[in-house]
């Protein structure tokens, strides 16, 4: 099981990703002190969070070099997750439903 050379290269990547995650956390907090409009703040915070999440998934969870079976499961999950995220929009644009929200 001696794959030391490859793993050592990976370790350098993990450390770089770790530093990037810390820096992006500071960016997220710093942006919150700029007192931007709510819409702008939401967009920026979600973009930074998505980049951070992408780094964790790609490198720490090795999604960048995973097998097809994992990608297939995750594509299906992404489709259902996207549908789930659209539900509030549908509900919000439904005048009947929104009129009944106290």
């Amino acid at each position, binding site marked *: *099981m*001696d*794959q*030391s050379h490859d*793993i*050592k290269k*990976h*370790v350098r990547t*993990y*450390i770089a*990703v*770790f530093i990037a*995650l*810390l820096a992006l*956390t500071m960016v*997220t*907090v710093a*942006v*919150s002190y700029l007192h931007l409009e*709510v819409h702008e*703040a*939401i967009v920026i*915070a*979600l973009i*930074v*969070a998505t980049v*951070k*999440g992408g780094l*964790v*998934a790609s490198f*720490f*969870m090795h999604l960048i070099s995973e*097998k*097809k*079976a*994992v990608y297939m*499961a*995750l594509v*299906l*999950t992404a489709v*259902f*997750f996207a549908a*789930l*995220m659209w*539900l*509030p929009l549908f*509900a*919000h644009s439904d005048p009947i439903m*929104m009129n009944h*929200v106290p």
Partner: protein
Amino acid sequence: MEIPYTIENRPDTGLFNAKLGIWLFLASEVMLFGALFTSYILLRVSAPEWPHGSAILNVPLATLNTVVLITSSITMVMAWASLKMNNFSRYRMFMGLTFLMGVGFLIIKSIEYGSKFEHHLFPSNSTFFAIYYTLTGLHGLHVIGGMIVNGYLWGPGSRMWKSAPERFTNRVEVAGLYWHFVDLVWIFLFPVLYLL
């Protein structure tokens, strides 16, 4: 009967069984937290007014918790990398650190909860606190679950390293995937609840 494909990859999936299993489990977890995030969005857009998280929650403590959890993610992946490099003592150190980071996260979270309880801010106080406690409480339970597994793999479970090192390394990898997912959820919870 021996459990199949604990070390070698299945020809059809190209993965050992536990790895496909954990990814399917994580897919279900995405839907669980996704449903709660959707609930949060619906509650927020439907509310006549919504408090700014930073006005009523402790941002410095939550930032510290974010750093703790991110650090625990790298110690977790370093624990797995140490096993891949046949260095068991380094594995024990990194896995121990990961466990301690989990403890640290829960201590910081309990300080936050304690402060809220002192000010009589409970889930029944407002929709904001109801969803805040639901999301952070469920996430906290996931941290506890991960710590139980990590603690086992650091302690009694690590005996497998002597008898089946590759199988043990795979177990650590699977536990790591779960732990990184818990970190990933917090990466979204932190700005959504505390900063927006």
